[in-house]
């Protein structure tokens, strides 16, 4: 009788682990696919970076982002969600001086919103646990980083070069997002 109960418990744990791992694998797959689409859409936005070399700005990405492989899954989820949320906010600003297609921008926003929907339940659960380590401080640094981007756009009056710089930053951000998504599997 005892062995039968233990066997059932072991099966349940295995299935639970499988289910959890499957959910993270599915999340990872969805995130990477969506990020690739976003990068593709961004590249469709016309720009001439060689003409905007003088207005380049060094926006310091948090140092923790360079060592994202040390993140736990919970921290990676928090950082992912924050970055998606901030990029969404920047792309909603005035881009009329660039001549970019609104359809492409809308498609970008839709992709970003979809990614946030996938991450929101997990992000809320992690926030409730209040067990932050690296993710907590990293989120603060990210907020500061994106604030600087917003301030730059505002100072440049949302001209085309500013948006060209923003486009380059967004492409970098999506590369970081892709790496963070890979760490969800580890």
């Amino acid at each position, binding site marked *: 009788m005892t062995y039968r109960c233990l066997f059932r418990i072991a099966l349940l744990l295995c299935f639970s682990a499988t289910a959890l791992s499957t959910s993270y694998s599915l999340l990872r797959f969805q995130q990477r696919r969506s990020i690739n689409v976003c990068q593709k859409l961004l590249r469709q936005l016309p720009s001439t970076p060689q003409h905007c070399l003088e207005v380049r700005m060094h926006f310091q990405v948090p140092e923790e982002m360079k060592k994202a492989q040390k993140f736990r899954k919970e921290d990676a989820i928090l950082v992912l969600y924050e970055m998606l949320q901030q990029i969404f906010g920047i792309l909603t600003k005035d881009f009329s001086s660039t001549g970019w297609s609104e359809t492409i921008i809308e498609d970008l926003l839709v992709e970003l919103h979809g990614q946030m929907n996938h991450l929101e339940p997990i992000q809320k659960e992690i926030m409730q646990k209040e067990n932050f380590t690296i993710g907590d401080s990293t989120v603060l640094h990210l907020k500061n980083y994106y604030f600087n981007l917003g301030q730059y756009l505002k100072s440049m009056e949302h001209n085309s070069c500013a948006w060209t710089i923003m486009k380059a930053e967004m*492409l970098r951000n999506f590369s970081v997002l892709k790496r963070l998504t890979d760490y969800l599997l580890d």
Partner: protein
Amino acid sequence: MVGTLIPQEVSSIGENHFSLIYIFPPMRFRNLQSILSWELKNHSVVPTHYTLWYTIMSKPEDMKVVKDCINITRSFCDLTHVWVNTTDMYVSRVVGFREKAELVSCMGSFFLESDRPLDPPEFEIVSFTNHISVNVKFQSVDPRILNEEELQFYLAFIEEHEGNSVKRHQPQITGNITENFNYVIDKLIPNTNYCVSVYFEPKDPRKINRSPLKCTLFQPRRESESSESATIGGIITLFLITAVFISTVMILKRIGYICLRNDFPKVLNFRKLSVWVFPELPPLEKVATVEVIHINRKKKVWNYNYDDESDVENEAAPCVNSGGYTKHGLMGRLCPASTTSASLEDCSDHSAEEPYLPEPKGDAETPMAPGPGPWQSEGTSGGYQTRGTLQQDPTSEEDSDSTERSEGRIVFNVNLNSVCVRALEDDKDSEVTLMSPSRPEETVVLEDLNETESSLLVASEERTQLPFTDPSMECLRPQDAPSDQSDTSESDVDMGDGYIVRQVNLKKFN
């Protein structure tokens, strides 16, 4: 000068004399290598050497010259060890010189993570009877680039050349694609040469990097060979499956997981229908009933008189004190005194005159054991059972029933040579004839009515009557010296049939 750069991100100088045309592929990345190449569209003015500069968009840094690409005559530059950050956007500038005059300059921006076209993977083709199998080896592709999401970005096509006919196949790559991928091309025309090319195609069709063609002549093989090999393979497979199955069953049976043996006793074997229909009677068992009869008698007072004067008296009643004799009274059907030599059979007719031979209560149906009776058998070994009855109180009401229930009697042995026999009557001079079997082992325990002890009385069936007429008796031991019993004499008369009649002249003794 024409620079091969990414469209929409190029500029050049000297437009009045030159035109810029973007010729793809802009950059050729051979797996991990980053090589930037350029081509001239207008060959009217050809620079003699080139110099390459670059910078990044994330930092406001000046253009840096590539040391290995200063005043080079080739039209490409290896930037593998220069452009190492794949997440940054690089801006390059190529300046063509003729002697020291700057003829043309081209600039372009590159985002390495998504701009690099993948080199085609290695593959092999095998021709079968009715199809061609293409085995694509993804190990030759950079694993950092090759993953299913990336391949969604780049599509794989397999072109099939049949003469001038080109067919493209778009295999669905799912799952783990870090290993080999096999694709089958069927519906082919026999005896036709087919060529296959594999490549990764990005979303931008101008970034295709095709592999060289590999061709094979499609010739269907003889069906007998394939059928023979298939038959042999099937037989071997079937044999292996059967062997595995049999070994599994044997192992399970050996460890007792299946086909448990039920070695039930035979009595629990209910499969025999005859047992249900005709239940077998249990074997007859010898059953003897015993009834303890308590007889109130006076306590035997052992006279421990060691005086010499009492020796004679003691000797007169040796069965009481001397020699360890125990006096028992024998209750049985007494034959009349006249029948001194009556046989046992005769005694059975006088049941009414006898005190009784009690039957054990409640067990009058004890089956008789087969075999010779106790007084008849001569060949059996010592210790065989004799039929007997238990002594009953003369005052018992069951006296009259004793003869009728003579069969249910306990049997025990009495050594006649070690007991005293005494007749119950007061006839002192009567002779008591004892009929005892020839075997000394058979004994009869007699009871003294005057005794106050309870005892078991052994009698026999009708044939085991022990007629005696005188309750007084003289006990003799066969080993005792005849001189000790000078007043008695006994003689054995062989009556034939194995019986010996021992005639004992008894004296009344108290």
